[in-house]
């Protein structure tokens, strides 16, 4: 995840092929999103239901991670 932090602009993750993720995996995403810095976001595309649930339960207070509605 570190290269994303160093890069510029928003980070888009295409997750349609991801079947499952656990609490640790979701937390790594959320922590990375927290460290992106001023004005940058992490945008998740087609996350599995379990990831939405994990972010909802454990990482509600991370405004820099969002799920694409498209």
């Amino acid at each position, binding site marked *: 995840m570190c290269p994303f932090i160093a890069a510029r602009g928003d980070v888009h993750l295409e997750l349609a092929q991801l079947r*499952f993720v*656990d*609490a*640790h995996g979701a937390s790594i995403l959320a*922590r990375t999103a927290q460290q992106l810095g001023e004005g940058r976001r992490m945008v998740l595309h087609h996350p599995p239901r379990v990831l939405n649930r994990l972010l909802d*339960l*454990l990482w509600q207070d991370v405004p820099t991670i969002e799920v694409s509605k498209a």
Partner: protein
Amino acid sequence: MNVVASVTNPFLHEALFYRDTDEYQNGTLPFVQAGLDAGDPVLVAVPGPNVDVIRAGLNGSAGKVRFADMAQAGRNPGRIIPWVLNAFLDEHAGAERVRVIGEPIWAERSATEYPACVQHEALINLAFTGRAATILCPYDVQRLDPDVVADAESTHPILVDKTGRQASAAYGEPENVVAAFNRPLPSPPVPADTLVFGAGDLPRVRQFVVQHANWAGMSPQRVDDLEMAVNEVATNSVAHTPGPGTLRVWKEAGTVVCEVRDPGPFDNLLAGRIPPPPGSPGGRGLLLVNHVCDLVRLYTHESGTVIRLHMSL
């Protein structure tokens, strides 16, 4: 006897023994009112009907109090410390003192739930040491078994009833109380389906759980939650023990029970009760398990640990 918070440990954990609605109100309303008068944040987490009793007694002040139905929020006793109490304390981290009325034990609690309830009460004393908070736990001594009242005396340093407030002579070290209720779990009432798993088998573990939960007729969202919860426990098993782990699943009384047995000890009493620091990516698996399950039972002994997750349909 006058009992106050010590300089070194400002945390207060008190049991309130009540016999009827009058005693309930006389024991709780002044506690809430004193908190409001002092500007303390106040949480009342008690079974629904008792929420109504306190709300009615507070008249106009009820709007300043946070209420929760403990029969829902605390149906799983393991959920109360992290998701009810600690969440409220953290939300009001700047407050001089936080006041909570928490009623985790009521007459309808089952024998399966009860040991986890007592362990929860004991662990409160460890979890909130040093926090500027007062937690008052009402016990309906009219309807609860005398043994339950005796257990409350061992888990609360301070006892309150209509005659006053005193130190509990029967108070026990939390570790000892937890150990006293660390008992072998009863055999499943029906034959269980079994899967032995190792480090590469987590997808099979999840598939096994989903299949059985679906067969049992569980609602889809709860199936997702149960899959997530069992995966966390099985992950801990493959990450922290030499394995193998054994998963057993069965259905009893409208509930699916998933049991993970492994050869590792379980020695962190507060695992799954207190969140790790925000910067740490690990340590949230059991918090999550406690959030979504209706009951979590644990038995640990020198040659291994058994964790049972109960999820109603």
